[in-house]
């Protein structure tokens, strides 16, 4: 509100005036044009997607994320803590690279690590980075975590179709759910946009269990 320009005021005022009508109108218009929603199976049990937490858990937390998204990363320790404490939660981290080439590169190497059974290490290391990423930083980070970047690259290349297919499906699902961005959580049958705190996650898990 400190930077109240004329435009801000006019736009804001008009939004307030006609907002409700417009909102309802766009909502119903969108509801009609949106593609078919993916099934729970497709979203939570995509065979290509690595599973963290307890793979046999009775509740699945799906997170659409990006390795450069600040709130995904800030939120990640909380998420890990909750998943670990609960002990009965499947965690499916769905790569949805929205911050350009470095995000895609990080996702590719981490998925390559999945072939080598070191997805958790790669994912944790990358999620613990600070700030923006570039190729050098990504490779250094993974190397420091004890991973062989060349091997990850090769592993990704070997199953390129599988991983690229997964990334494509993730993007399509995000679009179908009209997710606004990252992070976005799906817990049970509810979509939670944006970062979630501990209590929020616990409540959502409890709700999913009924």
């Amino acid at each position, binding site marked *: 509100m400190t930077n109240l*320009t004329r435009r801000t*005021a*006019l736009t*804001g005022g008009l939004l307030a005036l006609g907002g409700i009508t417009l909102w309802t109108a766009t909502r119903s218009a969108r509801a009609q044009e949106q593609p078919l929603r993916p099934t729970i199976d497709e979203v939570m049990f995509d065979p290509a997607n690595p599973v963290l937490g307890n793979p046999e858990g009775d509740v699945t937390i799906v997170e659409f994320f990006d390795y450069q998204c600040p709130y995904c990363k800030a939120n990640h320790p909380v998420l890990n803590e909750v998943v670990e404490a609960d002990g009965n939660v499947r965690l499916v981290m769905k790569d949805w690279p929205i911050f350009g080439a470095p995000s895609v590169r990080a996702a590719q190497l981490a998925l390559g690590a999945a072939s080598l059974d070191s997805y958790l290490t790669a994912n944790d290391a990358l999620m613990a980075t600070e700030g923006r990423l570039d190729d050098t930083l990504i490779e250094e980070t993974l190397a420091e975590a004890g991973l062989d970047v060349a091997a990850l690259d090769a592993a990704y290349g070997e199953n390129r179709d599988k991983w690229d297919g997964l990334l494509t499906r993730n993007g399509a699902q995000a679009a179908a759910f009209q997710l*606004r961005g990252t992070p976005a959580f799906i817990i049970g049958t509810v979509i939670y946009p*944006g970062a979630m705190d501990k209590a929020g996650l616990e409540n959502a898990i409890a709700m999913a269990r009924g």
Partner: protein
Amino acid sequence: MTRTLSYPAALRRAIIAPLLAALSLALVVAAALAQSGDAFGRQSPPMDPREAFALEVLPQPDGSRLLRWDVAEGYYLYREYLAAETEDGRSLTLETEPGVTKDDPTFGTVEVYFHGTEAQLGAAEGPVRVTYQGCQEDGICYPPVTDTLPAIEAAATPPAPGPASVKDPATSVASESGIILANEGGLLDGLSARGGPLLVLAGFFGFGLLLAFTPCVFPMFPILAGLLAGQDGTVGARRGALLSGTYVLAMAAAFGLLGLIAAWSGQNLQVALQSPWAVGVVAVVFVALALSMFGLYEMRLPQAWTGRLSGIGAGRGGTLGGAAALGFTSALIMGPCVTAPLAGALLYIARTGDAWLGAAALFALGLGQGVPLLIAGTFGARMLPRAGAWMEGVKAAFGVVFLGMAIWLGGRLLPGPATLALWAALLLGSGVFVGGLDRLEPGSGTAPRIRKTVGLAAILAAVLMGLGAASGAEDPMRPLAGLRPAEAAPGVADNDIAFTPVTSVPQLDAALAGSDGPSMIYVTADWCVTCKVIERRLWPDPMVREALAGTTLITADLSEFDAEGQALLDHLGSVGPPTMVFLDAEGREAPGSRLIGEPGVEEVVASARTIR
């Protein structure tokens, strides 16, 4: 009194301020609503990214674009993710402003924009894709948003990018011949681009309110008073509101109808409003009103109407019908007074073909003008003293104002010195009637002495103006200018500034091709009476001549108003004379320089400076 206001500039400011106040209140409410999302301990649901980062594109005359993002509270945009490219993927330079360095461990040193930012996008051919990306603070990060901007129809100046057609009224309008008109077009365009039809209507309502305090609307008060107090009349507030409401509605409807007629006939309302006939008739109406004010005769409604009015309850429809008819015709009296706002509405109609919005805007204008009338009609009867000496004084003052309006209007038809002589006569009469020549007794109090002073001052002014008129002067503000020895105007040798007359688009192009400096196109016509005033008062003015020295001067003459004339008007984006279009050396119209109506010397000088 002799100079019209430049409505668009002055009124725009006057209207925007109260609107802003009202709308910012709404904004506070909206913000409060958004805040309530936090009651659940979570962020409010993220907005649509195009709402959170509202992008406004302002095409510049040189083919570049100014991109302006308005970032919602609690959201931010990344500087380094702002990008632009052509349709075939060639990246374009985008000059961005420094952002705020966000200090966050998970964030690193990334520059972001809270609230908003602007970026300059260089000239580019064809459509352009602009990409931007941002986050809701502590919430969500959006994927990149890409907007495709339509091509700007660009200059035909030598290094200019290729053409493409743009219908959006908020973009600049170019023409084959290489002149680029400034994008503001009209007040309506601006309001419409900024806030849609609602704001246009609100803006014109505000216009009307302001116009209600100009002498143009004064005659409405006695007319309405006549309607309300047609008999010995105790017209109650409800009845008064009903009648004046009908009157105002009819007046507004007449304005709206004028807009529709103008749109459908494709004819220039200006032409009709400015015809000597219209101006002459309205001047006569003002004289008649003035004489009535002086008590020469009582203004009365036709007996049939007053008769019905006396029988309250019965014949109500007839009275309302009378009020409606009066209101409708009253609008026509004001026509010549409100040329500038009409021009704005008509320009919009012409550009967009949106007859309904144009008509609705004029309707809103009429309603705005009617608000004081409505108040006066509802409460006036009880608030104002019924009669008495001072009421006579007020009526006389009205009469003088009406005579002044008549002279002002007549000044467009009459030779300058004759107009000045009329002003002299009006002042002389006022001076005498106020008591300038009355004898003061030694014991006279303050009031008579003040009256005498005012009266004498008026008489003195009248004498000066009379002398001026006799010596051929025209400007009431400088009546003795003609008596001064002719001064050697610096830099201007002869007494005429040279205009190249053109009557069609090809002729205009030829005239512009012959000039490599700035140029000014003056749209005029024989039948345009306001133009006569301009030609008499502005062109000989030394300051105007100095400001226009070195500028190619072209008159677009619409005296023969045919298809070619209409094409010329369309070409210039003008609704009719008088209009002045100022083009710089590259043939681009300087933003904000266009003058419509009867501008003052200062405005012409200011506009001329913008193209140097």
